[in-house]
């Protein structure tokens, strides 16, 4: 015994139990979880140690623990736990706590699992945009009839694309800055906790490319047992995001490099539209399946509002984007515009809350995986 004095943070324990870890105190440290976990490293496995740290309220130790993020919520620990302590759910709640801890804008972080509040923030921003443009009647006809007498809906007439870009480009940049801020603090803390001291990230650069390769292939998911059905839907959603990110930048290229006008590339004959629509279908299918799988397992595993808000947000983005396009094609301008506004609100919500919602797992998990690869902490089988 080295005489360490444990100072439990009772408020932290309460917060954890309120965000999906109410089973936490059932754990009696048998360590079945660490053995059945197929991705826990041999040297210092998880999640048994995280369970006792959480019971003791060791907030800082847990925030600086990369293992919380190496966990992919396979669910094998929860299935085999003899006490129903649901380690998988506890680690989920710990990830939420870490995201909050490293948040740059604290008030926004407090809304990370509050879909309604996030939606209101998004709605305020988009309402401001509409007011700035002066288009207060969403259902009015902003479009003109072409020479054949057909009404051609161009969303640019309703909300100019350049104005959207003026809003969303800074929002995106804010997200990037916030993510970098969080990643830096997280990185410093995990290096500190691992006894690496003042350790610059530069030494870890060679580990980044192989980690990204691993993420692209989703091969950690493949080693999951209980929740192995999550791999395909997550892969779909993940590649949908990539496809849609490419689509967006492609449009930016048309608009600002080639000098095209908004709407010039909206024909279905343009390959940009193929990629965009494929991305939308993958997004809807992926998020729908993720929601469905979680619902089917609701008895055994807890899904918190933190999980649901992101999943539904992604699903709604896919549905509204596709519906706006469909209404545009059939020429129903009023529903097209209404759904388009909803779509913009959801996108704003996604951008503003990306570093505070569950979406932030993208940065923190990748960082933790880079750290694990760099320090040789990862399990060889999953490499």
């Amino acid at each position, binding site marked *: 015994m080295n005489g360490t004095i444990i100072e439990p943070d009772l408020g932290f324990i309460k917060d954890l139990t309120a965000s999906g870890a109410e089973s936490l105190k059932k754990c*009696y*440290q*048998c*360590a*079945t979880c*660490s*053995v*059945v976990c197929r991705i*826990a*490293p*041999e*040297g*210092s*496995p998880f999640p*048994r*140690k995280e369970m006792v740290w959480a019971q003791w309220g060791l907030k800082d130790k847990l925030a600086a623990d990369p293992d919380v993020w190496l966990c992919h919520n396979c669910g094998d620990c929860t299935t*085999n736990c*003899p*006490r*129903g302590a649901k380690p998988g759910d506890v680690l989920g709640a710990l990830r939420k706590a870490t995201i909050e801890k490293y948040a740059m804008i604290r008030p926004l972080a407090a809304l990370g699992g509050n879909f309604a509040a996030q939606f209101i923030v998004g709605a305020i921003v988009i309402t401001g945009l509409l007011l700035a443009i002066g288009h207060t009647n969403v259902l009015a006809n902003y479009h003109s009839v072409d020479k054949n007498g057909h009404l051609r809906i161009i969303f640019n007439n309703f909300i100019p694309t350049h104005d959207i870009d003026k809003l969303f480009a800074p929002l995106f940049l804010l997200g990037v800055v916030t993510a970098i801020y969080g990643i830096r603090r997280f990185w410093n803390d995990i290096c500190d906790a691992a006894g690496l001291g003042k350790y610059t990230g530069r030494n870890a650069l060679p580990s980044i490319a192989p980690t990204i390769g691993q993420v692209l292939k989703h091969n950690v998911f493949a080693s999951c047992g209980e929740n192995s059905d999550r791999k395909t839907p997550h892969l779909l959603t993940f590649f949908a995001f990539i496809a849609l990110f490419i689509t967006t930048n492609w449009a930016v290229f048309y608009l600002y490099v080639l000098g095209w006008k908004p709407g010039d590339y909206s024909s279905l004959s343009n390959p940009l539209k193929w990629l965009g629509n494929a991305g939308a279908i993958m997004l809807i299918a992926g998020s729908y399946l993720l929601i469905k799988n979680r619902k089917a397992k609701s008895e055994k595993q807890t899904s918190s509002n933190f999980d649901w808000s992101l999943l539904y947000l992604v699903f709604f983005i896919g549905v509204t984007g596709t519906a706006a396009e469909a209404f545009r094609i059939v020429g129903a301008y009023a529903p097209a515009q209404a759904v388009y506004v909803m779509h913009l609100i959801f996108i704003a919500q996604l951008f503003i809350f990306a570093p505070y919602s569950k979406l932030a797992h993208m940065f923190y998990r990748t960082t933790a995986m880079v750290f694990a690869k760099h320090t040789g902490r990862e399990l060889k089988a999953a490499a």
Partner: protein
Amino acid sequence: MAENKSILVVGGGISGISVAVEAAEVGYKVHLVERNAYLGGRVAQLNKYFPKLCPPYCGLEINFRRIRPNPDIDVLTMSEVVNIQGGPGNFTVTVKTNPRYINSACTSCGKCAEACPAERANGFNYGMDRTKAAYLPHTLAFPMRYVIDRSACASGCKACEAACKYGAVELDQQPVTTELKVGSIVYATGWKPYDMGNLKLLGEGKMKNVISNVMMERLASPGGPTGGKILRPSDGKEAKVVGFVQCAGSRDENHLSHCSSICCMASIKQAFYLRDQYADSKAEIFYIDLRTPGRYEKFLNRAQADENIKFTKGKVAAVSEDPSTGDITVELEDVFAGTKRKATVDMLVLATGMEPEMKGTAGAASVSQDGFALADIQKPGIYSTGVAKSPVDVMTSIQDAAGTALKAMQSIVRS
């Protein structure tokens, strides 16, 4: 006071025997109903009791000695209670007695078994060896009389009948239903070992050298399948490096949610069997918590003083078998070290817990979700004792039996 001064005791293990003897010696008539062909239950199958490590027949023989001359104890082996009606002071109980096919003329000479051509798995040794279809339940059985397992006989075979010169074989015996009038009832139905087949993470009972703790008792017992030599089942090799997995099914909401209370002591005791038998043996006990309360702690201290008995905190959650050697490798997290570890052993003993026999088939008693009898007060005149009520050791069962005998007698006096 009720006219009927009889008590029905269901189950002839150490608890039931104790209740029967205590009540009968006060002057009450006792019907002791036992499903097996012999009395003694799980205790009869032990090699030694803890903490003094004396053979269980020390205790059982004293009780048999008290039963034999007592006319107030009516022992009904191979019998089961099929129906109970009435209330305190006036129960009517229906008991079905299955045929033994051997009558009281049997002298246990063994000629029937010699002549018998058929074999059956020996349940007394948990299926680790075989007996003839005509068999003596075990060497110290009470009653000391052979039994014939007709389900193992070839049709029309009468070899045993011809071999018996006392006319003790009666192959045409039929089941008999008896009606008993009793004033109170005691359930002493005890337990069965938790089925290893349910333990997915621990080999599902499919690996030869992964055995349960009750099987280990038989392996170490002079009356067991190996004559008391601790040899592993796959190849009969001396098992010198043995692992013990605690809480194998116990304290687990997916299996038995209760602590079976005796398994820590049982594994320590079995580690002593091993250490006493082979000087170069090693035992490792993998536990979650060591539960050796009260004076049992000394027993634990004795084991801890032996450097060849190792205690590791961490539950075994993966087991694999080397197909060429039959060796077993376990996987666990050593909690104090904080690292995952593998250990390879000659044989692995699962400290399977006690599952109450009444689970699912409570009869007239009311039981908890775990299958243990609930507080006596819910059913007037019906009591429970020993492991039927809660998972306890032999010593506690015997103490509890005396108290329960008193309750059963009081109920008759009051009604």
